């Protein structure tokens, strides 16, 4: 019992360390640096410690320090409690989603089965959606409580965009669930050990639609109408400063990692390397003993998983710096009139194909 708890705790600390401690600060740097490289600029490289700039990596530290020491500003007429509460409501779901995301398979370490997921829930994928639906409140309340016209416009846009794409996001992965017959993310990952059963081959349309809906749900460019700087200043977080402002960004970046992880698990073979089953890998390192081989394979799998995640983060960044922002009615049209009927059709077509094959 105690060992189980300790293992769970270690996994939680690892995940929180990776998301909050590594990805969230690093992605602020990546976003600037990648856009700079893409647009033939040098980009962030001014912050230095003793003249040493480390490619501008210290900007992440400088940003964090600056945000901590900024004034916590609450405008007049704003609801103080809700204004303070909303960034908390926005961040918690972003972190909590990772509780069901597996980052490796099951390994036999020191005579004990270690499953590299914090909570192996039976309703894993639904848990992700449930948590995502709670995240809406953080943004809506943020705009509403600020007593600012821009914020209110932003929060109305956020609310209708997020709820529209929540439905679509749910319906686009029905096809995947039909193919794999499970909602448990660990099971879906384990099935994809077989390269021919990767989700991208079985559900290419589902992948495209899910990625679109997920980016829209995360409110990133090209779907960043809720925070459109050039239209409504910064939308729902116009009146936020300091770390409260940073927390909205943090949740956006963590959600980006979440999306990449879910896409990897559902469509790109999770932690598996194509054509290399876990058994093959284990047989290669047989000399190291059971625990040693398992440990090595575990490290390889976690590395592969995060490499895939990083690839999808890179892809989202590329999309963000390539495509212009959609108009508001275009976003709603895409969600309700194109993705929704298309995903229903996808469900029917998948059903027919599966029935024919059986």
């Amino acid at each position, binding site marked *: 019992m105690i060992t189980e708890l300790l293992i769970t705790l270690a996994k939680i600390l690892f995940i929180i360390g990776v998301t909050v401690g590594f990805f969230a600060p690093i992605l602020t740097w990546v976003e600037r640096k990648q856009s700079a490289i893409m647009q033939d600029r040098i980009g962030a490289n001014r912050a230095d410690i003793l003249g040493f700039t480390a490619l501008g990596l210290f900007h992440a530290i400088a940003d964090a320090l600056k945000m901590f020491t900024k004034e916590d500003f609450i405008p007049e007429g704003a609801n103080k409690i*809700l204004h303070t509460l909303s960034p908390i409501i926005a961040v918690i779901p972003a972190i909590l989603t990772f509780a069901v995301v597996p980052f490796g398979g099951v390994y036999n370490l020191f005579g004990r089965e270690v499953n590299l997921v914090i909570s192996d829930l*039976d309703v894993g994928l639904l848990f992700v959606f*449930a948590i995502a639906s709670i995240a809406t409140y953080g943004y*809506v309340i943020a705009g*509403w409580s600020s007593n600012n016209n821009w914020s209110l416009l932003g929060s109305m846009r956020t*609310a209708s965009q997020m709820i529209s794409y929540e439905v679509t996001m749910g319906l686009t992965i029905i096809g995947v669930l039909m193919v794999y017959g499970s909602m448990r993310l660990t099971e879906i990952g384990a099935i994809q050990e077989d390269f021919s059963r990767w989700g991208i081959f079985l559900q290419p349309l589902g992948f495209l639609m899910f990625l679109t809906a997920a980016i829209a749900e995360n409110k990133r460019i090209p779907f960043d109408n809720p925070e459109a700087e050039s239209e409504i200043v910064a939308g729902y977080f116009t009146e936020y400063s300091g770390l409260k402002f940073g927390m909205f960004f943090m949740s956006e970046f963590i959600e980006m990692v979440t999306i990449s992880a879910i896409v990897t698990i559902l469509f790109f073979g999770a932690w598996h390397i194509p054509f290399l089953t876990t058994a093959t890998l284990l047989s290669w390192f047989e000399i190291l003993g059971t625990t040693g081989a398992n440990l090595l394979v575990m490290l390889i799998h976690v590395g592969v998983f995060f490499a895939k995640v990083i690839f999808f983060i890179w892809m989202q960044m590329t999309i963000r710096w390539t495509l212009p922002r959609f108009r508001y009615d275009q976003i709603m049209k895409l969600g309700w009139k194109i993705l929704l009927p298309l995903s229903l059709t996808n469900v029917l077509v998948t059903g027919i194909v599966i029935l024919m094959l059986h």
Partner: protein
Amino acid sequence: MELLIFYPLAGFSLMLALGVVMNKSPIGSALCLIGMMLGLAGIFALQQAHFIAILQVIIYAGAIMVLFMFVIMLLNLKGTDTKWRARERNTLLTVLTTFLALGVLYKVITVIFEFNLDSPAKVPDTFGTAAVIGETLFTDFVLPFEVASILLLAAMVGAVVLAKTKLD
């Protein structure tokens, strides 16, 4: 062990439920209601109803409360409205709700005493999972399932008729 988790959760839910009624500002009430729904979902999960717990979060806390939030934000009720205050002293309503609450409490207490609490029912490991619920829903309860779709259709038509009617 289960009781150790149940009582804080139940207390949390009850406190938030009280918060819904006592709160002066409508949006505060709505937030309390969301918190209560989440607490309820926790209790469902404790009773091994995993699928229902998740549905509680998705449908009630995630969807229906968004609707409530929209209504509050659209109407933008002020925290201390004069009409709102006037309702506080409606004696008939107070008496009626008190009787109703007492009736419900009586029923709850009698139901509790009917059950034998010493030996809780044993449930299989798969109890409450999505697969098991789906199995019953799509074989034994096909007709209610299809009727539900017609109900949803009616609601959809109703919403559009209400929202799209031109007043002039």
